[in-house]
């Protein structure tokens, strides 16, 4: 196990209305087996004891699945490792003496709450518009009543793996949420269960996405690169197709 020392430039902002700025901290000795968030824990323990408010950051499962953590590290959401959430990024990927610039996920639709924490409730608002199959509990057919080809189920799961962390929005020059929305649209459009509401869903979710101030996709692929779950940009193509199909061919409003 190796010990490294880092310089951390961290965005500090007390609230949404206040002015924020970078503040520089020395990390102190960090073992390379630590996770990135454990490195922040160590810093925060020191800050608390010195009477300074610790750096606020979102995190929960620390297994890369809840989607709660995420900051921009040296310009990259979730840091330099591919397909890795911030909580699963380990310090062995950094060198002694490195300087790390740590910022929140920035976007018009993600209002800053404090330090590295942003409000991503816009994602919930988009899901509420149609990111579901409208079945009530009970009265559903036997689970094996509708066979689904393995390939289709796997493709749907590839899309459904999205953890809703918001890295795609933070990475996009247009702050577009189309990878997030495309993933949900694809997941349900691919499955037979999603067919009855296919058009309505595409129209409603896109409308909400626009309303909330997310930008449009410019095919730059930054989102795909930043996505810790490797959600493919082909889901955005499918979203466009679903939207066009619904807008031109559907009888729904």
């Amino acid at each position, binding site marked *: 196990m190796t010990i490294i020392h880092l310089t951390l430039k961290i965005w500090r902002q007390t609230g949404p209305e206040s002015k924020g700025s970078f503040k520089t901290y020395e990390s102190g000795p960090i073992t390379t087996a630590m996770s990135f968030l454990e490195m922040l824990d160590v810093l925060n323990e020191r800050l608390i*004891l010195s009477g300074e408010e610790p750096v606020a950051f979102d995190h929960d499962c620390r297994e890369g699945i809840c989607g*709660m953590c995420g900051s921009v590290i040296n310009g990259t959401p979730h840091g330099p490792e591919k397909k890795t959430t911030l909580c699963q990024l380990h310090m062995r990927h950094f060198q002694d003496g490195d300087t790390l610039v740590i910022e929140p996920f920035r976007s018009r639709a993600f209002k800053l709450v404090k330090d590295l924490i942003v409000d991503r409730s816009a994602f919930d608002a988009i*899901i509420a518009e149609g990111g579901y199959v409208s079945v009530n509990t009970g009265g559903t057919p036997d689970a094996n009543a509708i066979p689904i080809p393995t390939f289709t189920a796997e493709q749907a799961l590839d899309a459904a793996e999205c953890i809703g962390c918001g890295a795609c929005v933070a990475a996009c020059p247009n702050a577009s949420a189309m990878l997030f929305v495309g993933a949900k649209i694809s997941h349900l459009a691919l499955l037979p269960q999603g067919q009855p509401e296919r058009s309505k869903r595409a129209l409603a979710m896109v409308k909400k996405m626009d309303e909330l101030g997310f930008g449009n996709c410019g095919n730059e692929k930054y989102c795909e690169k930043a996505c810790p779950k490797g959600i493919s940009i082909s889901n955005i193509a499918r979203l466009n197709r679903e939207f066009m199909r619904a807008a031109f061919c559907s009888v729904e409003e």
Partner: protein
Amino acid sequence: MQLNHRIPSGPLTEKWDRFRFETKLINPANKRKFEIIVVGAGLAGASASATLGELGYNVNTFCIQDSPRRGHSIAAQGGINAAKNYQNDGDSIWRLFYDTIKGGDFRAREANVYRLAQISNQIIDQCVAQGVPFAREYGGLLANRSFGGAQVSRTFYARGQTGQQLLLGAYSAMMRQVKAGKVTLHPRSEMMDLVVINGQARGIVTRNLITGAIESYAADAVVLATGGYGNAYYLSTNAMASNVTATWRAYKRGAAFANPCFVQIHPTCIPVHGTYQSKLTLMSESLRNDGRVWVPTRTGDKRPPAEIPEAERDYYLEKKYPSFGNLVPRDVASRNAKEQCDQGKGVGDTGLAVYLDFSEAINRLGEVAIRRKYGNLFDMYEKITGQDPVKEPMTIYPAVHYTMGGLWVDYHLMSTVPGLFVLGEANFSDHGANRLGASALMQGLADGYFVLPATISSHFAESSLPPITTSHPAFTEAMDTTKGRIQRLLSINGKRTPDDFHRELGLLLWDYCGMARNEAGLKLALGRLPDLKEKFWQDLKVTGSGADLNQTLERAGRVADFIEFAEIMILDALSRQESCGCHFREESQTGEHEAKRMDDKYSYVSAWQYQGEGQTPKLHKEHLVFENIQLSQRSYT
């Protein structure tokens, strides 16, 4: 306090039907007159919120995360059990029921577990209809795998992220009700107290985690789905924010806490690597289907695994348990790993690990096939440890994972406080002294989708619920208590952080109330708690104020509750002088070092009742009656 389990009469197989027929219903038009509070938005909370909203009730749902899609159910990897018998391998509702009772070492209620097995099939139907992309066979039908402790393939799964897919299904169903106006969400809200009026649960006090505002909400019933208390040990596989606060506050307002000493220690986790470690990561036990567990035969053998010849490897699980081998239940696998490490045969830097080796399976099936099955788990392991399990065996060690104990509930899932219902891991109901793999998802969804929505109407129909608003003095009192406590935490200004205290508590519990317990150790730990509590309230340091987002303050409040809670955990472990399931009292073991139950003395659910500050809680016993199965000594040899 009376523990009335309210199990319906009649044959086991007819109880749930009989209950649903005999229970009083609420007219559809009247349902909208009832307000329900749901605390927690994991599988149980989200599925309950969705279903109650669909039925027409008005629901307010609270969670501590920024979005209800993040409850820790999301991290469940392996799968969900159901008695579909799609594989035609001899499964049935009765077999799932029997396996669950036996797996729990005969410390769960027959009626609850049978109902769970019955409902398991409806859950799968429901989830598929929602669009949960379960794994499928080439013909398009659902795939199943066998899972720890089961000899049939009854586990449905979605790669290694079944919990995520099920939770997103429940979350989506709930968001549909948000859109419909039946569910109102309160994310980043932490329940601080339960409000009890005229003996009924009528509301909660919360802290808005962004503004710090102390708020109160009134309702006709309160539903807790706030998960387990595994984080009492500091290190566990739970999410960082998982806590006991909601259930502990309810306990202090009169809800009995059942079987708090039943804590499951999962055998396949990534070992601890340093004192700064913040949490432990589970590796799904599905890995034990193809991985073989071993240690060197010689103590203190520090050679790298590749240099240890076959003859000097001890595949201790296969040797001791020939018919189950590496698939023995979790508690058995965990205890055996500890036993090997205690004998000095542990591997890795700390000597607190055993190998989980895939080389035999790779030779037999090929690397491609093994990667297809476990690829994401291998990646996860490599990400954390920097080692590739295809090239060298994984190192694993047990970690605190799930708590079978929880608030006591009756057949209706109602606690000893009328109007307070408890679902999922937060209650004690279905897993006895040990939970089988892939059964937590099943129970969370059974409680939320099917049980509570059927039982809550009888509470509304049979109780007198006078209109109440938050201006009632009970709300003012609870809010003042909460504010006073927060003020106290902020004003200590000592020298130790909440995490520092939490770590101390965790080590104490792990050492003396962990995988193996004995009277002397438990008494020692119990004796240290008052001192720890005193130090906490004298030397704690919390920065910032209570008037905005303050994560240190949040943690301090949770740690304070864990310290208090630890007392009933240890008292429970002390009072249960038998071994059963995960609760291993060293004084009570068989010749082969297996857990030895004492059915004549301990065939009961322990339920602890709060007696006031500084008073020893009172133990109540609900005796378990087994009319349908024969109790046997668990044997996996």
